[in-house]
């Protein structure tokens, strides 16, 4: 991670004042002593936390970064090798991969946009209209999200497939002779399935943002004879923007790296960028090229997330 302090930047100075508590003179002095219990506790918590997080998150990404410059997988993987940019060159020159990356980003953006748009009225209903039952209604909405992702996708297949519920009931009723096959195994099926599974989750950050709106602002707008739609446009929506942006991001990030949903409902026409990476690791066994493809996905996602976080302002949303 360029631009960030190296691993050695593990905290060296500890001030005794806990963050929410202002440091007192009494609490400050002992912290300078080497074996202060508070300082010892700090290190006992810090060292394992940093060690585990660095070795399971940062180190793997660095290894992947390194592997993407390796000519091939032959020989000892820890031995030095002549770094090559061949894989990146191959990625840059393969137009179909770029198109796939663009398409996956577009699919993820559509999924996130539609899921957010559908979630907004739901969150609005829960925040302002549901009253005392809001908690119950929220749980009711979230239960489907908590049930197995794979099984919900499988259930969609049951409904959309050529022998699925929609087709077999239409055939049973005599509406159609041959099953409709446009419902499954294409790009649209992937997008629709993903929108469907993410709607409950997208409601949460919007609900959090709406819940933080001071209701007196709405009262004031109403007192000043703003029409309900003006209130929505001038008061509710502007204040909900961090929540809407958070919902968009929370759906977009996992969706852009999807490879399992396309496997299940996408067929050959509905593959995403993640499927290319998966192929190079689990089938073609060209790991260096796969690593280069992963690095590109990582960089693209990071850039989009950094842009997104400027809009979300997570601190404002969490109220900390």
């Amino acid at each position, binding site marked *: 991670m360029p631009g960030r302090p190296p691993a050695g930047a593990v905290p060296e100075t500890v001030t005794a004042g806990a963050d929410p508590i202002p440091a007192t003179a009494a609490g400050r002095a002992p912290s300078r002593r080497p074996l202060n219990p508070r300082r010892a506790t700090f290190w006992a918590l810090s060292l394992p936390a*940093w060690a585990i997080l660095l070795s399971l*998150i940062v180190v793997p990404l660095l290894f992947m970064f390194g592997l993407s410059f390796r000519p091939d997988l032959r020989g000892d993987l820890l031995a030095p090798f002549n770094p090559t940019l061949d894989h990146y060159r191959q990625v840059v020159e393969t137009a179909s991969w770029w198109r796939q990356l663009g398409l996956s980003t577009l699919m993820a953006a559509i999924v996130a946009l539609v899921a957010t748009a559908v979630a907004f009225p739901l969150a609005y209903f829960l925040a*302002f*209209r549901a009253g005392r039952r809001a908690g119950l209604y929220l749980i009711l909405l979230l239960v489907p999200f908590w*049930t197995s992702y794979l099984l919900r996708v499988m259930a969609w297949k049951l409904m959309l497939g050529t022998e699925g519920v929609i087709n077999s009931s239409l055939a049973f009723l005599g509406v159609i002779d041959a099953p409709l096959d446009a419902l499954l195994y294409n790009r649209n099926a992937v997008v629709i399935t993903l929108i469907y599974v993410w709607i409950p989750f997208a409601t949460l950050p919007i609900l959090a943002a709406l819940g933080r709106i001071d209701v007196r602002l709405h009262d004031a707008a109403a007192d000043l004879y703003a029409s309900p739609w003006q209130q929505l446009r001038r008061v509710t929506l502007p204040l909900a923007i961090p929540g809407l942006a958070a919902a968009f991001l929370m759906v977009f990030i996992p969706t852009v790296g999807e490879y399992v949903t396309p496997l299940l409902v996408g067929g050959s026409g509905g593959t995403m960028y993640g499927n290319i*990476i998966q192929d190079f690791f*689990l089938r073609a066994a060209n790991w260096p090229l796969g690593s280069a493809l992963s690095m590109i996905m990582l960089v693209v996602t990071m850039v989009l997330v950094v842009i997104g976080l400027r809009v979300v302002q997570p601190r404002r949303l969490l109220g900390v």
Partner: protein
Amino acid sequence: METQVGRSWRGLRLPALPGFYWLLIGLLYLPIVLLAVFSVNANTSLTLPLRGFTLQWFERLFETPALLTAVKNSLIVATASSLAATALGTMVAILLSRFNFRGRGLLTGLAILPLIVPYVVLAVALLVLFTVIGIDRSLVTIALAHTVVAVPYTTLIVLARLIGAEPQLEDAAMDLGATYPGTLRLVVLPMAAPAIASAWITAFTVSFDEFALALFLAGREQTFPVYLIGQLRFATTLPVLIATAVLLMIGTLTLILVADRIRRR
């Protein structure tokens, strides 16, 4: 729609709003109801019309050793990874809420990073790491990956509780002569216990349902989602899988509702 002067604001009075909510609830529950119906339908193919009630799929489930092993593996992985992620998340949350130190922002970023890195990238990176340092793919590698992806959730859940807590209790304990580790153990941890329990259950369900990482990191022993993906193409086993799914769904829901109840305490 009347303008509401002089009384507390109650939102847009659109009758379509509750209707929209209930329509989506219907759409969201339809597949789940279908799964439940087909788990007791006496027909191997999942088509209408229904062929009558049976419990044979549930009986068959207990006679399929591969399936039971996969479920057992998932339970092992979820237990181990959720315990590790909860311990780690609690440590990070205590550090972030009770100490000022250089690298605080970096630690926050590190604990949240798994939410931002696409799972396929994280899976690739971990696979490369484990291969390079010579660790074979097994339940252990899956559990390590699941620990990583659960840490953001456990950290945020415990952190929310610790930030919201009143610091006076800890001050009082220290004033009364408790050591700092003693204060953590006797005041801070018990106070955060509901959040810690809720974090653990969240981490457990995250792991139990996870397949994007597990597909890359599974060796010969499969977790249930990995087994499920492998079996989905065989139509004959589908009713048994659905029956298993229904049982697991009931289990997961119970856990989550318990977690929710605990967190609200």
